[in-house]
């Protein structure tokens, strides 16, 4: 499954990634698989991104504990901090 992952507002993680966007091909089908893949690539430090919000395809919030939440090929998954502000 091919995924586009955006990690915004985590400067130290972005430094490790070399940017704020990565394209991944993972062997899996859900959020837990994606997180596991990221941990394998970057280590436990990646856990930090779970302190913010997770948005799938700009329209569905995912919860960090909902590891079985299905993902589909071509999904965009964004991790970021958002304040309720304007």
């Amino acid at each position, binding site marked *: 499954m091919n995924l586009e992952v*955006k990690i*915004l*507002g*985590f*400067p130290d993680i972005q430094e490790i990634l070399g940017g*704020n966007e990565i394209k991944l091909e993972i062997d899996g089908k859900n959020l837990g698989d994606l997180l596991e893949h990221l941990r394998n690539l970057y280590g436990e430090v990646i856990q*930090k991104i779970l*302190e*913010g*919000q997770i*948005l799938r395809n*700009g*329209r*569905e*919030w995912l*919860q960090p504990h909902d590891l079985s939440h299905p993902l589909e090929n071509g999904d*965009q998954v*964004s991790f*970021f*901090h*958002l*304040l*309720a*502000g*304007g």
Partner: protein
Amino acid sequence: MKPGAGISGFGKVLRVDLTSGKIAIEDVPMEVRRKYVGGSAVNDWLFWQHFLKVDPKIHPLSPENVMIAGPGVLTGTGFPLGAKIRWTFKSPVTGIFGDSSSGGRFASSLKWAGYDHVVVTGKAAKPVYIWINNEEVEIRSAELLWGQTPLECGRRIRKELRDQDIETAWIGQAGENQAHIASIRVSRNRMAARCGGGAVMGSKNLKGLVVRGTKGIRIHDPQALFKTFDETFEIIRRTARTKIFQAQGVTSVWEPYNILGVNSFHNGQRNVVPPGPYELIHPAVYQNKLGRNPLSCCDCAVGCSSAYEVKGDETLYAHRYRGEIGTRAEYGGQASFGSLCDIPDWAAVNHLWKMCNDYNMDAFEAGCCCGLLMELWERGVIHSADLREWMGAPLSLDWGNLDAVEEIIKAIGLQNTALGKMAGKGVYQLGKEIERIKGVPALKYALYGKGGAAHPEDIRNTPAWAINYAVSTRGCDHLKGLGTLDKIPDPKLSMKYFGTPDAAGLNTLLKGASSAICENVNGMYNLLGTCTFVCDRDQLAYSPEFFSRVVFAVTGLEFSPDELYLAGERSVNLEKAFNSRIGLRREDDRLCERWMREPQADGMRMKAEDYFEDLKSEQYAWHGWDTKSSLQKRTKLAQLDLQAVAEVLAREGALCPE
């Protein structure tokens, strides 16, 4: 110490009548403090009392209007989550209840001079300012200050009084000229911009307030208060988003908002900013190229603002502003000018923000006016001949025309052209007037909500926000109901308030209810005077128990968390009751046509009419208001111990019959 009696200043009201020159100091009655605690909520009570003696239907720019300044309960105490002041008045932008808040050391100085509220009535014969030197209060001539920018006024007054610690709140030329969207500049660089308080001051010939406050505040239990400081520092330290918020402030929403599809582009024709402009106005560009040093409001341990300095080669337009130093535009400026008007250039956006602040006007309104004009130009509704007639000189309004936006802001500030006068009334009146002149639809492209107040953010796929923008007592606004479950999807909070985790999401479930709860919660935090943005992720996640302890440590008055919440709810209900008295009903809680009927061009492609009426009914029901008329009910007001309010409404046919 007996609360409210001594040098603490808690509960003191300074009344200044500019018509008679009468000055008086009085106490806020203890039963009022028990009900409303202080700050913005007591402002609301003072406002309500004023309009029991004065016809609530007066023109907002008549001498009968009132201007009330009220620092929050925790303002001036050193409590490290900001120190806000609220300005309360009838709004000339919307014609309904109006208020606006700002940071700035002025708020604390007012408390240190011994006052929790200043109530200004009447109209001076000539320009004046109010000089508050602890107990000594005078109305002084401002004739030599009239026409000067707030910064220049501050410089002159500090020099004249030989005191660099004096704090000020001034209006600029937009306020003097009574542009309805004029703001108040508080201390050196904080703005109370919404609802047109600057125009109300201008209509009273009131250039500003100048304060020397040296008495300080007596804290009931300093050790307990210091302990809450430590707890707050710990919250700030452990909150994950503190770092990015300190680096980028509210502009940090730029990236997530584009993914969510709530950044308005080309006057809201699109809700995702395309690559190119998106990258150019990205907050990182500001950080890397223009940011000079971080800035913080008074008594804020977070510090989300930033000072910039333009060297001249950082961006396309930087050469125009070589040497300019100022404060970075917040998201509202970034969105209003950067994306609504398609001027994706940080040097330009900051300069336009600075222009709005120097003339003193609401940048949301000014930006939405410019965005509307550009769309009308693109659609061929207005032409060069119109602009020549309205501005006295040729002007083209192509997207991204920086010169045009500068000219329009200047015209609003000086009120010296027909277009400046039209736009000075805000985007709703501007759209209406162009529609009248041209005889073709124009208002349908304006971005506004209740009362015609402008907002540069797309809210169609965030239903709780959409309802806030329609129902908020001060008209279209995000700050009266901030903290929603659609943008900050916390299932635990959803569970806590609604018994289900499912309201936390980009859906319509319980978003009317969420909006109602958030209005009351914000009413509670606003009265404290803490900053809306700095706490842990979401308003609903604040701990009322914690703030109950803080208020006790400061005042010695015990308020349970429920009593604090009730004070917030009372303040919402007083503001609502005022609006009901002047005739507002369900149909007035509305959104502009673009948000209601036009599906978003990008992302979720939502439009508000698909959920609007149902969620509005839900919102009213959670407030205990009538779902048919939106009017308040006697039983609900009695629960809030607001029977006297119910009587007034009943007499005037503004109470729901039960």
